[in-house]
């Protein structure tokens, strides 16, 4: 007999893949794409922020570098974003090395603040690069219609599937890491760095390595995003919102768990979009106030993340059965 778990996974995958064939509403599909994208960024952030508890609030740095690398290659040299997306990832990895070298000397809140500063500095840098990278005005990407080879698609379905592939990739990587020695080492470093070093864990190296992976993945999201919205400027690419969302979806969903960031995004992203569309036209800021209240309620009620509710319920049922 085929185990129930396999059936459930195949079923879920089929539904997810077939979704854009059924859902034709552009607004709904847009929300789905954003959910997939932010879940992807959340999973990438969670590898470092969740498992190793290195709370970065500067992942926008890599998002922006990915976005700018592929866009510069596309517009300046006509190179396909399919190559640009990988190049962006590599650039992000290279930049993560000196950032990590500097920031990993700090622990806790000091580390978080340092990462914010790095992302802000990069944003300022790109604001100044007026000739090379279009400065504060930014630029639109050439609209080539339906050109899959240039990572542009006629409808939203193409973007949806691409985002789905990215998320699946990040989840697969996390799954592999979680079950290997590296997963144990990351959690150990997150729990107690000194105690981890006492049993032979090379903490500086493991932090550097996970930062490389996390930066690479986050940069892929950056390229995807500019290809999707056809526009880039420093405020979008290095938006502090990206850094915060990456951390937030993981914290709300369940930090240091495989599915936590996905669950967090499924709950937060549509909430935020719906609040924006229903309350956004009213008195300014109402939608943000409601959003913030929801966040506070979740964090007070379930500080270890909402995924815990599901696993607890599952275990209770399993124990009874």
């Amino acid at each position, binding site marked *: 007999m085929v185990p129930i778990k396999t059936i459930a996974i195949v079923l879920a995958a089929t539904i997810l893949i077939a979704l854009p064939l059924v859902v034709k509403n552009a607004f709904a599909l847009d929300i789905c794409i954003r959910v997939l994208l932010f879940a992807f960024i959340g999973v990438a952030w969670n590898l470092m922020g969740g498992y190793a508890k290195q709370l970065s609030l500067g992942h926008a740095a890599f998002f922006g570098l990915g976005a700018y690398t592929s866009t510069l290659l596309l517009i300046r040299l006509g190179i396909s974003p399919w190559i640009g997306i990988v190049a962006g990832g590599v650039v992000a990895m290279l930049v993560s090395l000196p950032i990590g070298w500097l920031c990993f000397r700090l622990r806790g809140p000091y580390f978080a603040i340092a990462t914010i500063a790095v992302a802000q500095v990069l944003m300022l840098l790109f604001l100044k690069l007026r000739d090379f990278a279009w400065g504060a005005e930014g630029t639109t990407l050439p609209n080539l219609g339906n050109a899959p080879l240039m990572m542009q698609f006629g409808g939203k379905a193409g973007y949806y599937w691409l985002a789905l592939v990215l998320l699946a990739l990040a989840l697969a990587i996390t799954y592999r890491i979680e079950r*290997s*020695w590296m997963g144990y080492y990351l*959690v150990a470093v997150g*729990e107690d760095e000194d105690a981890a070093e*006492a*049993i*032979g*864990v090379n903490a500086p190296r493991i932090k550097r390595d996970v930062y490389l992976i996390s930066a690479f993945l986050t940069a892929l999201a950056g390229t995807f995003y500019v290809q999707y919205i056809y526009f880039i400027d420093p405020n979008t690419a290095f938006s502090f919102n990206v850094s915060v969302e990456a951390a937030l979806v993981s914290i709300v969903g369940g930090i240091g768990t495989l599915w936590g960031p996905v669950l967090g995004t499924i709950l937060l992203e549509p909430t935020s979009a719906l609040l924006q569309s229903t309350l956004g036209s009213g008195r300014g800021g109402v939608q943000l106030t409601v959003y913030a209240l929801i966040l506070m309620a979740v964090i007070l009620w379930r500080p270890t993340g909402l995924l815990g509710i599901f696993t607890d319920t599952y275990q209770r049922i399993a124990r009874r059965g």
Partner: protein
Amino acid sequence: MAEALVVRGVSKRFGGLRAVADFSFSVNEGETVALIGPNGAGKTTSFNLITGYYRPDAGSITAFGRELVGLPPYEICTLGLARTFQVARPFGQMTVLANVMTGAFLRDRRPHIARERAREAIRFVGLADKENALAADLTTIDERRLEMARALATEPKLLLLDEVMAGLNPSEIDQAVGLVGQLAQRGLTIVIVEHVMRAIMAVARHIVVLDHGQKIAEGTPRTVVGNPEVIRAYLGTGYAHPHPHATD
């Protein structure tokens, strides 16, 4: 007999405080040595110096012929020195098994091998029935057991135990003494920092006494206990007897 650990002329200051001054001692392979002294004598500081958590201001530390000064803790562990902490530091959100597996991964990256070796260490310290418990839920003695199992899982040649018996009741101390004795019988070299004299007398054949960061006595348990310098350090000058045999 070959020397497992040689500490030579090591000093460490913290601001105006001289924590360890010109400290030397050595441990032969397979020997169990106890490091004793009143609170603040520099015992834990010595451990931190040996295991790379502090860098000495002067002196050299070699283990199995390798210089340790300047190496980070994880490399010192890789060379075969494992330690426990005075205050147990379990990875609270991991299970007992996962804690010990993390140690075992040092010698083999394959999860099934690490799991097997971790289970061996867990069984040895007597935690087998709690391998799936969360480390944060353990009692004090079980935390100490976990510390030991995690250190043993790294397959050390030299084990440094920092007050593993503090806070245990007499029957728990007997159990712990039994474990240390078994490890010594296996040929493991052990340096033990301890306040529980009964335990020290039972496990150590050689004792080094520290006071105010300096070595004041060294020798077999019998000679050390009778040493007037040691009695003065522990009890004050009024109790120091000129004739060692008077304490027998």
